């Protein structure tokens, strides 16, 4: 039963991911991403991490995907279906395969802990851990978000800009 659920979740996750990297359409890619993220959220649920699943769905499934779609629309990159893969994709494929094999093999070869069984955290414990033990990273993370916000505003704000396309004077040598 658990295994079946896991397989379903895995198929969603992996399938969505494959969709993201394989589709020719950017909008589709965003939607595939959503699919994959939801699959991941399912995996969190299987791991009894309901809170994380929730966060995943809210932040990723909601916010991130929407941001992505905005980006896609603003850059009208959906009009460029030819934007697919670059010339080095075979190399990329091999590299990715090798790397995930290495990572996988590392897990595979690490002896499993016999006592390992899924446990569910208590929400309140989690919360108190987050705000006591991890308070400092939490505060810093808030600053990170702030910086990202300010930066995004500064950079993306519409201006009547004159682009100085000072193409590198390097020359084609």
């Amino acid at each position, binding site marked *: 039963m658990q295994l079946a659920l896991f397989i379903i979740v895995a198929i969603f996750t992996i399938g969505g991911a494959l969709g993201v990297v394989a589709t020719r359409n950017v909008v589709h890619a965003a939607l595939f991403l959503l699919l994959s993220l939801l699959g991941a959220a399912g995996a969190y649920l299987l791991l009894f991490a309901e809170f994380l699943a929730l966060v995943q769905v809210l932040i990723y499934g909601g916010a991130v995907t929407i941001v992505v779609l905005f980006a896609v629309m603003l850059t009208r990159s959906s009009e460029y279906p030819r934007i697919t893969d*670059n010339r*080095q994709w075979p*190399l*990329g494929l091999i*590299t*990715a395969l*090798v*790397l995930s094999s*290495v*990572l996988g093999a*590392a897990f595979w070869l690490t002896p499993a802990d016999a006592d390992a069984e899924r446990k569910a955290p208590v929400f309140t414990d989690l919360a108190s851990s987050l705000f006591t033990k991890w308070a400092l990273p939490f505060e810093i993370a808030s600053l990170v978000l702030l910086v990202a916000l300010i930066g995004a505003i500064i950079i993306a704000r519409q201006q009547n800009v004159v682009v100085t396309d000072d193409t590198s004077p390097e020359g084609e040598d």
Partner: protein
Amino acid sequence: MPLAFLIPVFSFAACPLIILFQRWLPLRGAPLAILAIAGGFVVWILATVGFLAASADHPACDVSPITHALTCHFTTTWFDAGVPSEIITDSIHLNWGMLIDPLTIVLLGLITFVALGVQLYSLEYMKGDPRFGWYYAWQALFVAAMLTLALADNFLLLYIAWELVGLCSYLLIGFWFENPGPREAAKKAFVVTRIGDVGLLVGILLLWVNVGSFSMTEAFAAAASGQLSDGVITASAILLLLGAMGKSAQFPFHVWLPDAMEGPTPVSALIHAATMVIAGVYLVARAYPIFAASPEALMVVASIGLVTALGAATIALVSTDLKRILAYSTVSHLGLMMLSLGALGWTAAVFHLMAHGFAKALLFLGAGSVMHGVGAHGDVDIRRVGGLRRAMPLTAAAFSIGALSLGGIPILSGFWSKDEILLAVSHNLPVIFIVLTMLTVFLSALYMARAMFVVFFGTQGEDSHHAHESPILMTGVLSILAVLAIGFGWIAFNWPGAFDGFGTFVFYDHAEGFHFNVVLGVLSILLAVGAFALAWLVYVRRTLSIQSWRARFAPVLRVVENRYYVDETYQWVIDRVVLTVSAALAFFDRAVVNDVGINGPADVVRKAGIALRLHVTGHVYTYALVVALGVIALAIFWWLRSV
């Protein structure tokens, strides 16, 4: 006698004084040089008197166990090089030292006397030259160096003086450096003798390596005692001989001497006839204990001497330039001296050295007088002058005495010395040597007669119409030298009561009194007189024509007239070999060592940089790919290393 060191010091001091203050000194400082050498002459007399009076109980003197002559030794420390450490014990301790023995004494006499004469003579001869002061400066330096050479008690000091006389020779040959002739001749003289000097220096160092000292006496003692192996002795003797050959213009290093006649004639007289060129002979004579220990070396000395003597005599016979005739004559006579040394005729060689020195100085100064008289400053072609005896009687007389003396006419000094040589050769060398020596003697008389007759007797030459006798200063010097050319030989005799003969004073190993071989003597008299007679017939009376002879031996003549093509060979070697090698090496240095060896690696590095930079393609996915590859490499490496 210890004051003998003053003999060169006067002149050494004169040189820089003249250079620095010539502008303010009377006669540009010439009197300073003359005074210096005159002082040297006086000191020499005093030293000689002292030496003659000294005996083995003089604190500085001893009878040398090798030469068995009284030898006096005065030294003072010059410098030390290297301090012996525990492992390597040798270092060198150098002295300024004088070694005074009969050889030194007579040589000093020759040098001081001729130099004094020549410098006096030059007052007139060089008058009006724009570099009159410099001339005397170099003269002084030369004399000083030459005297040092004669006095030196160790090889290093000898080498130093040896090089300095070479330098002065260079400066004085090239004195009129505006003209290409003197300039090139000077360079040639320096370079050729320098090649010989390589041998000399190597020889000196070889001796040092085996003896452990530069001291001559120690080296001689080692050679005589058999402390040195035969190989070392022969090698060092040959190497010293190389130096001697360069300086004394022995074949094949003789080429510079005729060219050196480009210098002022008094210079030729002093340096290239009487003094510097005999340094080589002197060296062999001085280092005779080493040569004597090696029969092979002596044979080489004799052979070189003979080849030189004969070859130069033939060339002298066909030369047309007065000074060149004299120059080849010098070469030839130097060869005879070498031959004599090689034939164990040590005393004969020294004796001939002296006799030749006076006579040849006389001849050169006479030639200078001729040039002065006819107003020539370069070459004097004997075919263009003639019958000068009327215009220049004193010069003619003096020159003739010199020529007769060197030609070997009896009772003149040249006869006696030459006779001694013949004696030695006939005693100690194979018969072919004496035959060829006789031939040389004949040729020698013949070319001397030719020069004398053509220039002073016979018909008036085209260049000699305005000839006039030289000033009294010059002729005076000539006269004194002429007296010596006549009479010097007489000191060879045993004068009962006064003097036991040259051979009892200047000798190697054992004193020998005067002796005379009738057969040889008569033979040489016949040859000499015959030669003069022949020349008289050919050049004065013109009753004999040599044209048919010239025609018959035209090819031989051409070879001889071209001086056996030795100069050409040298020229070819220098142009084709040395300069080509040098240019090739310079190109190699630039193109291979530098452009490939040095620039190459730099270029490789730079090109590597240029090639490597292409890895930053500008595409962000490449960057990502490389990062990923790095991840894989790192992960796998780390993992494998950790297992």
